[in-house]
């Protein structure tokens, strides 16, 4: 039993190890030219070096900062707006098409438009990432309120709770699980757009800039290393949000 449990604990790393093995195999079997794909050991070594020397630090922080600024703005605007729209279904229905349309439009398609408005600035990158994230947050918060359990609102009504408290104590709390889904997808979306923006809107720093720079000069180890760091950042943010979500909306999925 003990042995079994110990083996089970290793299950999550089976996939990554298999990937590294296939990667290694692809190189030893000469399926891919090493100039396009360096061996995993070397790539990870190079990545380790970049981390140890702090070379990647500036870019990492720049990307993280932009993502966090965008996410913060999107949250501050999106959550109250979503809740307000959700609690008035008539208003939501009248703007639903706009939200759904722009939510379905890849935000990267709007980069040229944002370039016209904001120019090649940092503000532009943050603005477009905010725009992408805010729609997801509005949509989820609004639906969280609209799908609030009618019975809980009714319970509060029969208790004689004043309307503003029903809003704060019941509707807001009811919307939280769905709001957190919006925040989690929103932060991932913000990161995606920040990376794209760093690649194509004249940047001097950021992981997106680092990846495209490395590719331009054919520094493939650098490129793969930066891709892995970007992936780790996205994964870490998602994990962080899942943990926070589990703590705050502890009842989600249990009722």
């Amino acid at each position: 039993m003990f042995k079994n449990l110990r083996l089970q604990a290793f299950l999550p790393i089976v996939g990554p190890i298999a990937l590294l093995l296939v990667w290694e195999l692809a190189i030893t079997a000469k399926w891919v030219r090493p100039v396009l794909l360096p061996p995993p050991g070397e790539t990870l070594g190079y990545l380790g070096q970049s981390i140890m020397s702090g070379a990647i630090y500036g870019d990492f922080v720049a990307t993280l900062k932009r993502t966090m600024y965008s996410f913060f703005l999107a949250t501050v605007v999106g959550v109250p707006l979503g809740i307000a729209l959700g609690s008035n279904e008539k208003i939501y229905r009248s703007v639903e098409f706009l939200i759904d349309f722009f939510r379905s439009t890849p935000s990267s398609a709007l980069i040229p438009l944002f370039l016209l408005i904001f120019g090649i600035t940092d503000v532009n990158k943050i603005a477009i990432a905010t725009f992408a994230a805010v729609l997801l947050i509005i949509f989820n918060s609004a639906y969280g309120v609209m799908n609030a359990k009618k019975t809980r609102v009714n319970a509060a009504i029969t208790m004689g709770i004043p309307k503003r408290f029903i809003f704060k104590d019941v509707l807001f709390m009811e919307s939280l699980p769905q709001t957190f889904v919006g925040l989690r997808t929103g932060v991932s979306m913000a990161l995606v757009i920040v990376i794209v923006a760093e690649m194509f809107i004249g940047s001097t720093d950021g992981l997106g800039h680092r990846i495209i720079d490395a590719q331009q000069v054919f520094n493939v180890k650098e490129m793969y290393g930066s891709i892995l760091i970007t992936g780790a950042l996205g994964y870490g943010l998602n994990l962080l949000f899942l943990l926070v979500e589990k703590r705050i909306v502890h009842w989600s999925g249990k009722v």
Partner: protein
Amino acid sequence: MTTVLDLPAETGTHVTIRGLDKSFGGAVLYKDFNLDIPKGKIVSIFGPNGCGKSTLINMISGLMSIDAGEILFEGKSLAQTTIGYVFQNYRDALFPWMSAWDNIAYPVKRSGKSKEEVKNRVEELIALFEIKFNLNLYPYELSGGQQQTVSIMRALAMKPEILFLDEPFSALDFEMTLFIRTKLQEANLSTGVTMMIVSHDLEDAVFLADKILLLTRRPTRISEFMSFDMAKPRAPESVSDPEFIKTKSHALEVFQREMRA
């Protein structure tokens, strides 16, 4: 339309319903419906499916609008009356973000009472219901019966004048039904709160009732407003008492007559 002026309420009446109209999409459910609910008594509402049992208590409790008519609580309006409501689906009625204790305390807190008063009120209810389980748990960590007990305690927290219960037993097992039946009876006897219970189980309906309201099919009228004066408190064995059986079978007879009608 009938009003209290044409049809005064009997003495000892708590809720007076006069000239109540309610239709759903053109289908008439209630038309010039009059009813007196006696104060401090338990009234069970029983009738065929779709006759609007829940609709009736939802209209009285203000959860549903009425098309016409008046509903008065000893001459007062609903806004001037403290009510309690216990829902069939306790899972959807309790607040999962609060512990069971906080759920019970919530209406009292929001009414502006001090921490001390809130605590005392919850302690009173804990004593009345002889709660043995941990109220610091969240509702979803409790069994169904415990959750329904918590929602009844919450509904009683504000010392309502009238308590509405919409099929409170339908999601409970037999053991919990017996327990909650007993506790509701105790709450009624010790506080004198008027209760209106919608039930689809005739035994539950008769067990608690001082009055049994038997309704017809739509458009809904009163088929019979039976009195059931068997001594209280009634024990679980009371259901085998000849008086109980007689009342239950009479109610069943009326019900079946309405089913055929």
